[in-house]
């Protein structure tokens, strides 16, 4: 048997450990342990008082059993007793047990604190260290309260032993992290910083962790540490390899301390003091030089220690990002490592270079290593190294090498590890979009992506390619042709079918001239894939078919035949059935003109941040996207989307603008049909479908189109929802039966609906609330759609609408109770009838309560019923306008606000919003064509309130001046408040 420590033996423990080791099975081990636990328990409970040695032995056994992974629920008291022993070994086992097994909220803390207090004042360094370790390990609030003021004193006292100082430094760090309010550094700051000068390296090593943490929190107070750290580093770097004796590790002087010093410096910008900076640059140069010197030892430990310092120095150089010379040298050094035989070095070099690539000084230098990196991607045997290579390629990509890099990444995808495919796909998609010079290349790339790794192509990626194709008319023909060719493959991915269906449905006409891709050929090709596809894809294909009927009247009989067959019109899936029935009916009763209007080509999508980028940002990782990259992308994305002068709310504008129903509106009974579509279904996109942005009255975006539109818009909605969740957990918090207070973002949500009537009001992980509303005169009707996003039913579902305070006498809202059960995936509808009695400022509150898996959910929102909803537009000529403007000249009738632009100041956007507001936008009225003027009458039951509006943008200053004059002063004020949030 190997020698167990001599002297105190603890033979019983040794025997027990051998027994455990000799156990042949897990069962035998558990049996032996249970026997021992029973034995110890009886000993602890026995009448005979145990001596210190036995107590130690049993506590030690418990500790061992615990370390084998078994739970220990007794012995704590005996361990606490050991603390007051005068024998080091007994005390030490006691502390060890407590550090490992007592968590910070144990009831024993008081007793433990007492023992610690005694040891701290014992002046015995080993006892003091044990006590400090224990405080640090447990780190509870009570311990912090008891000792936080004591420890800094021990740390800086002149007569404290080095080892105690080390423990005190880290103990203080721990307390600072757990209870920063109790650790007041004030008077100690300078003395703590000066520990960097301590002659004992161990003390410096320990203190630097504390100083680093404190500097991160209070950089200004600890600023002086920079020059001290630099001089300390300089002394270490320039010391001969044997100077530091035991702190030299394989001929490298104090490698761990050097790394920590370099890390500390990364908390600060480059030193301002020229001398300090010069000294630091000298250090960094020396470190870089040493990397080129022949090694002092062949041992890998030597080179590892040296390189640890080197990598840390390079991190600092990158952090400063101000010394081009050093940056380029760093890059060259890393370049050498890229081909090193040590995998660890290659891995770290790739990772480090990734950050180097984003510096303007070294970006070009990094690019020179492209071949090596591509080679690494192809030949590295370790997936994590390949992943780093892919990250680096992504980081070094720019317009000059995008084609090469994207091609290499695509070809790597064919063999890439499953674990990293999705991220790779996102990266390729982003690079292709960001650096697309010609869009045919972009389309090719994305289609290749779907071909090679279709399963990993998320919705965001194929949504994006469609958005871009719709917005760029120069690529539409090419896209149609390419996608048509891609669909020829006998087995093609469902995502390809989706993209194909969408693009051919929109732009199939552009390639129909060629007999090889005549309308019928296109249709048959798409339909050959139909039966292999999932429900959402089939739904999309059905929409493509109806678009075909519009594009190519000659396909009508064939398509109607398909729609009419039982597998469509009687499909067990409600969504498919509904689409088949409606499309069939639409194609047979609508005239060609109506059909052409309803099925018009999709309007360009509003410019927005790439949803793919948003997704990649969510995926954590060093290769993820930096802020600058994001901004870059916004800029470039703008280019990509082409017509950036289009407003973000085209659909909303169309919806609220059309106050007169268009002939197609009631053609299909859409208004009643929409809620029917809310049958239980697990596919999220179908559920969302019902909340169509474009209301029933929107002439160019009838329901079929907005099915498409919704499919595409879903990702952004989802990311909005994330924001909402982040700020408002209150929906699940209060378990009370009272209605919850309105969500903190309720006003914000309300503001989104000032200029539009339809959309998603609220969404969290459980529930989605959609709104459709219409107003006429002083009356309004609002449809609320509550969608259960989970697969579990909501029980006791109830909603109440209240008008708080004086709103009660201003607004009349009536509704009927909703069904108390909302099945998983289902949606229910509620209709509100609203009557405006007189003008009002507050919004009605909607409270929703339901039980989800037993937990009561309770949330309150503001319903977007605002005074402007009751506007009737009034057209008038310039002369009339100014006459009335003058009539409303009493000071209280006017409300004015000057504010900074929060959104795009683009003309079209502004017009859309003003129209959405409900007033008439008057042309040729204001002498300054940059300004906007509007007129309207608010209809309430009791009276009519005439309102005039003038909006003066100042593009240079990014400011607006908004003036409202109304016949009633409260209306002026309210409108002014509401509108100032909109622009």
């Amino acid at each position, binding site marked *: 048997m190997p020698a167990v420590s001599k002297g105190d033996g603890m033979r019983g423990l040794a025997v027990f450990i051998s027994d455990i080791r000799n156990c042949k099975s897990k069962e035998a081990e558990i049996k032996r342990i249970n026997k021992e636990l029973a034995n110890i328990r009886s000993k602890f409970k026995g009448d005979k008082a145990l001596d210190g040695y036995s107590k130690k032995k049993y506590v030690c056994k418990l500790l061992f059993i615990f370390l084998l992974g078994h739970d220990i629920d007794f012995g704590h008291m005996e361990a606490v007793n050991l603390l007051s022993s005068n024998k080091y070994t007994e005390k030490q086992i006691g502390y060890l047990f407590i550090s490992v097994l007592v968590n910070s909220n144990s009831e024993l803390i008081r007793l433990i604190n007492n023992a610690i207090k005694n040891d701290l004042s014992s002046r015995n360094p080993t006892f003091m260290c044990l006590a400090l370790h224990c405080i640090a390990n447990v780190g509870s609030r009570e311990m912090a309260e008891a000792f936080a003021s004591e420890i800094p004193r021990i740390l800086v006292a002149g007569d404290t032993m080095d080892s105690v100082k080390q423990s005190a430094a880290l103990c203080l760090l721990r307390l600072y992290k757990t209870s920063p309010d109790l650790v007041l550094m004030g008077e100690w700051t300078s003395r703590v910083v000066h520990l960097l000068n301590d002659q004992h390296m161990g003390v410096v090593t320990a203190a630097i962790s504390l100083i680093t943490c404190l500097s991160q929190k209070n950089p200004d107070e600890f600023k002086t540490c920079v020059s001290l750290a630099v001089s300390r580093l300089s002394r270490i770097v320039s010391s001969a390899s044997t100077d530091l004796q035991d702190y030299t590790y394989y001929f490298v002087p104090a490698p761990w301390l050097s790394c920590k010093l370099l890390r500390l410096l990364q908390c600060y910008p480059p030193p301002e003091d020229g001398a300090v900076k010069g000294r630091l640059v000298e250090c960094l140069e020396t470190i870089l030089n040493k990397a080129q010197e022949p090694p002092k030892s062949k041992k890998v430990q030597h080179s590892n220690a040296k390189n640890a310092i080197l990598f840390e120095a390079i991190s600092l150089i990158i952090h400063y990002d101000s010394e081009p010379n050093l940056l380029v040298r760093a890059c060259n050094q890393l370049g050498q490592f890229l081909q090193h035989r040590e995998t660890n070095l290659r891995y770290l070099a790739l990772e480090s270079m990734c950050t180097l690539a984003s510096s303007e000084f070294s970006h070009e230098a990094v690019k020179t290593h492209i071949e090596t990196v591509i080679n690494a991607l192809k030949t590295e045997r*370790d997936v994590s190294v390949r992943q780093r290579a892919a990250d680096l390629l992504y980081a070094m990509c720019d317009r000059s090498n995008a084609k090469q890099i994207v091609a290499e990444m695509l070809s790597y995808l064919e063999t890439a590890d499953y674990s990293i495919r999705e991220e790779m796909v996102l990266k390729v998609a982003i690079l292709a979009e960001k650096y697309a010079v010609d869009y045919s290349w972009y389309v090719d790339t994305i289609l290749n992506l779907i071909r090679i790794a279709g399963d990993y192509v998320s919705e965001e990626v194929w949504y994006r390619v469609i958005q871009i194709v719709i917005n760029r008319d120069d690529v539409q023909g090419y896209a149609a042709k390419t996608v048509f060719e891609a669909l020829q493959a006998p087995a093609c991915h469902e995502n390809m079918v989706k993209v194909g269906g969408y693009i051919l449905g929109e732009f199939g006409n552009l390639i129909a001239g060629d007999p090889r891709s005549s309308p019928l050929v296109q249709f048959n090709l798409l339909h050959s894939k139909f039966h292999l596809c999932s429900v959402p894809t089939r739904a999309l294909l059905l929409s493509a078919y109806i678009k075909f009927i519009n594009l190519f009247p000659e396909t009508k009989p064939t398509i109607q035949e398909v729609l009419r067959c039982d597998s469509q019109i009687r499909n067990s899936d409600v969504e498919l059935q509904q689409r088949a029935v409606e499309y069939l009916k639409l194609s047979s009763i609508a005239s060609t003109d109506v059909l052409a209007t309803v099925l018009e080509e999709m309007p360009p999508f509003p410019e927005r941040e790439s949803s793919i980028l948003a997704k990649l940002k969510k995926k954590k990782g060093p290769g993820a996207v930096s802020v600058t990259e994001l901004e870059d992308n916004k800029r470039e994305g703008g280019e990509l989307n082409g017509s950036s002068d289009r407003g973000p709310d085209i659909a909303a504008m169309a919806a609220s603008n059309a106050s007169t129903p268009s002939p197609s509106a009631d053609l299909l009974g859409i208004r009643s049909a929409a809620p029917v579509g809310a049958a239980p279904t697990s596919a999220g996109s179908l559920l969302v479908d019902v909340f169509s942005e474009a209301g029933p009255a929107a002439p160019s975006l009838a329901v079929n189109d907005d099915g498409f539109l919704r499919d595409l818009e879903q990702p952004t909605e989802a990311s909005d929802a994330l924001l909402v969740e982040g700020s408002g957990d209150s929906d699940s918090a209060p378990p009370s039966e009272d209605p919850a207070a309105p969500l903190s973002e309720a006003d914000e949500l309300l503001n989104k609906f000032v200029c539009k009537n339809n959309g998603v009001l609220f969404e969290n992980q459980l529930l989605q609330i959609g709104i459709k509303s219409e107003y006429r005169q002083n009356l309004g009707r609002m449809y609320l759609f509550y969608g259960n996003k989970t697969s579990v039913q909501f029980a006791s579902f109830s909603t109440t609408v209240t008008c708080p305070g004086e709103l009660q006498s201003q607004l009349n809202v009536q509704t009927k109770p909703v069904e108390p059960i909302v099945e998983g995936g289902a949606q229910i509808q509620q209709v509100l009838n609203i009557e405006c009695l007189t003008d009002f400022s507050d919004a009605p509150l909607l409270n929703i309560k339901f039980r989800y898996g037993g937990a009561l959910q309770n949330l309150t929102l503001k319903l977007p019923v605002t005074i402007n909803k009751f506007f009737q537009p009034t057209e008038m000529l310039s002369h009339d306008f100014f006459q009335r403007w003058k009539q409303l000249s009493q000071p209280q009738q006017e409300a004015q606000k000057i504010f900074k632009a929060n959104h795009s100041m683009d003309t079209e956007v502004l017009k859309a919003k003003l129209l959405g507001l409900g007033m008439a936008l008057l042309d040729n009225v204001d002498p300054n064509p940059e300004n906007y003027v509007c007129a309207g009458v608010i209809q309430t039951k009791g009276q009519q309130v005439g309102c005039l509006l003038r909006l003066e943008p100042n593009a240079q200053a990014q400011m607006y001046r908004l003036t409202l004059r109304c016949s009633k002063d409260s209306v002026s004020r309210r409108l002014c408040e509401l509108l100032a949030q909109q622009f």
Partner: protein
Amino acid sequence: MIKFVLMVNRQGQTRLSRYYQPVELNRRATLEADVVRCCLSRKKEQCSFVEYKDFRLVYRQYAALYIVVGVTDSENELSIYELVHNFVEVLDKYFSRVSELDVSFHLTNSSFLKTTGFVLQIMFNLDRVHIILDEMIQNGHIVETNKSRILAPLTALDKMTSS
């Protein structure tokens, strides 16, 4: 900072675990099993750093023994990698002296490390291994790297008990 240090044998059994951030007991076993699976499945030529959830693992193998360190990204991987070696050298220095085996100091030639004897020593002297580790790392931060200073308290302890 350092989140934890694990010593695991080739069968995946934990021989020593030290956490510097609270991890609930019932989650430790799962974490350890997961971490061990992560490291044991890797081949020699693969690099010694593994991304694991929101932190990194740095591991090093000594014959049948794996030492795995979980670190946040504020640590330098190579320096942790060598810290592990420094730790093993300290263990070697201490236990080879205690067991009075004639083991050459340089680990690369050390037969001691490659024997199960080394693991046995750790098993039988867990308390001492903990003391050594505590002298080197406190609260997840490196506190001492000088071998003789690391061993000083233990040496004093041994003298006390043998006298």
